[in-house]
């Protein structure tokens, strides 16, 4: 199975990614994660202002199979969420690193990004699964 990756993103072991965009991080799930989930049918997006704590569940993605927790790859405050997913949750499947993003976060500790895997490390990690 060939998965898509984003070279600018950093990855968690639970298959979320974070990518800096200006002062904020964009957060989503990886192509590997969306493939394992199967068709996404609903995203329970967090409200703007919600505080995220690294490695703690902050929202749920519902697929045809099950409800799955999404864990924060970084700590911070939600500044916006992807409104398009309300009408089109399948964007998480179609474009997990682009139009299928989940939230934007103002980081409380920028150093946390360094603890995430870079592209090479994450690719290697996915190969072991």
């Amino acid at each position, binding site marked *: 199975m060939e998965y898509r990756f984003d070279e600018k993103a950093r990855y968690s072991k639970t298959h979320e990614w974070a990518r800096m965009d200006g002062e904020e991080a964009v957060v989503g799930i990886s192509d590997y994660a969306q493939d394992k989930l*199967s*068709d996404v*049918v*609903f995203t*329970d997006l967090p409200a703007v202002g919600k505080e995220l704590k690294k490695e703690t569940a902050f929202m749920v993605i*519902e697929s*045809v199979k099950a*409800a799955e927790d999404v864990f924060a790859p970084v700590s911070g405050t939600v500044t916006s969420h992807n409104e398009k997913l*309300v009408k089109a949750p399948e964007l998480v499947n179609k474009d997990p690193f682009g139009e299928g993003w989940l939230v934007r976060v103002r980081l409380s500790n920028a150093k946390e990004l360094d603890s995430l895997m870079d592209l090479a490390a994450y690719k290697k990690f996915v190969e072991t699964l």
Partner: protein
Amino acid sequence: MQTKLHDWHVRAGGRMIDFSGWDMPIQYATGPREEHLRVRSAAGLFDIDHMGRFEVTGPDSLKLLQRAQTWDASRMAEGHAHYSLLCSESGGIIDDIFLYRLPQSWLVIVNASNTAKDLAWLQSLARGMNVSVRNRGADTCMLALQGPAARDIVKPLCGGTDLDQMGFHRVRECRLLDAATILCTTGYTGEPGCEMLLPAADCERLWADILAAGEAHGLIPCGLGARDSLRAEACLPLYGHEIDEDTDPISAGLARAALCMDGHDFVGRPALAAVAAKPLPHRLVGFELIDPGVPRQGYPIHAGSQKIGRVTTGLASPSTGRFVGMGYVDSRFAEVGSEVQIVIRESPKAARIVKRPFYTSPHWR
């Protein structure tokens, strides 16, 4: 356990899961949503070889069936098929089944998960009768071809046999290409189509031949994920969800479809007569979410602060774009239009009771 098409599924990229002891494809690379929609718009081919099937033969065949199941089989003409139930003495549902009347025998199709239990039950009831109940799981293979294009796909393969002319819930022996086939106009998707019993040895070849013949009509292989969402939109019950040994056919809304209370003396009839004589405490209903969210089996159903029921099946319906489900509720809240809440991860979501099914194929309208 593996069906006779197991290796084909793996080669085709089927995502294999355990389904009551069977290694089955939940989906192919196409994905369950697209597979679902294809069955509604064109056709899908399903491996249903995991389903149990018993051949009942001998002079006491009708006697056994009249004791074992809830539909009056004496009303069934040769070539007819009917939905029915096996019930316990207490009226609980042992299984839901399809009964086919062939010229020389009867076929009983049962749920994969209940095959061993049902066979033991039928054989125990057959004691002292001149009848044989034989498991045909090994020497036959079972496929389902479902969708509006099924008719056009089957016709040239089966020597001109027209599914519409056969009528719904009919069965006949014919040849599919060169193979002796039992062809049934039944299914579990809410679409027209057929289910087929084929010789086990020819299974993989015929599967491939049907797919090739159907390609121009839009036919694709479909997994159990699509099968489940299709049956749920059509509000067809699934054993272990809407029905089990703790539920009765009347509360499950299956009286018209599966019960004949005025004729034959089947196991469970006295208990069901007692259920029918009193108001039902709870009933199976269909509901639609007003607040978005995905209902799933076991979620509580509330009316205000009071728990009034539980979800048995829920889904994001691919054909309607709505979040819908079925569940048992206190009969006082079972009327269409009643406002209830589905509790999703401790959060009550507004829902209302709606008419079933959630989706009706244009074929039946």
